[in-house]
């Protein structure tokens, strides 16, 4: 086991880590300059920064949650309404890379008004980003 030096922000997101030497001066400098807190974490493996965060007590690591959405369909005809269940409020939905809004409850529907392929991306703090492609068929396809 080795000590992994973790610096994290006020949202408990990990900013950077190092197995190298870490002085008290560096810890103080990171706090004063970047408002990053410090955690000494005993581990024998590297940490995926984008898939873990520091727990509320500031003394451990928590893995990101994963989305488990259920789509009523992912290949549909025009005018079909797709229901997505299994999501929670606070989930930000991106359509083709552009934010389409943040869910205020657990209800999300997609209405197929144009043919083509559409990228749906789900993002939420401390969740692994989830991607799905929706195919909308034009009339007669």
């Amino acid at each position, binding site marked *: 086991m080795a000590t992994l030096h973790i610096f994290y922000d006020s949202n408990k997101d990990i900013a950077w880590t190092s197995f190298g030497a870490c002085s008290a001066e560096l810890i103080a400098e990171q706090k004063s300059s970047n408002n990053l807190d410090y955690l000494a974490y005993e581990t024998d493996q590297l940490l995926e920064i984008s898939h873990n965060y520091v727990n509320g007590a500031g003394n451990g690591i928590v893995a990101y949650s994963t989305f488990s959405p259920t789509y009523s369909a992912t290949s549909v005809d025009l005018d079909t309404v797709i229901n997505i269940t299994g999501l929670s409020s606070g989930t930000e939905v991106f359509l083709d890379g552009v934010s389409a*809004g943040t869910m*205020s409850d657990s209800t999300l529907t*997609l209405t197929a*008004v*144009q*043919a083509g392929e559409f990228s749906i991306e789900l993002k939420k703090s401390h969740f692994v980003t989830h991607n799905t492609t929706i195919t*909308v068929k*034009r*009339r007669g396809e």
Partner: protein
Amino acid sequence: MNINLVKTNATYATKRADYYPPGNEQLDLLYHAIDAGEFGNDAKTSSFYTELKAVKDKYPKS
């Protein structure tokens, strides 16, 4: 929350194109409108109508 699946560069023309029937279906609709007399009897003398009718008569619905 509902999101309409539409491309950012969509125009009225691209939206219409997705909803139109395929070309052969559009022509068939036109043929049947002529056949029903919706364009008058003169329309039944057009080559559009007579040529399609000739094919339909040659291969009637079984």
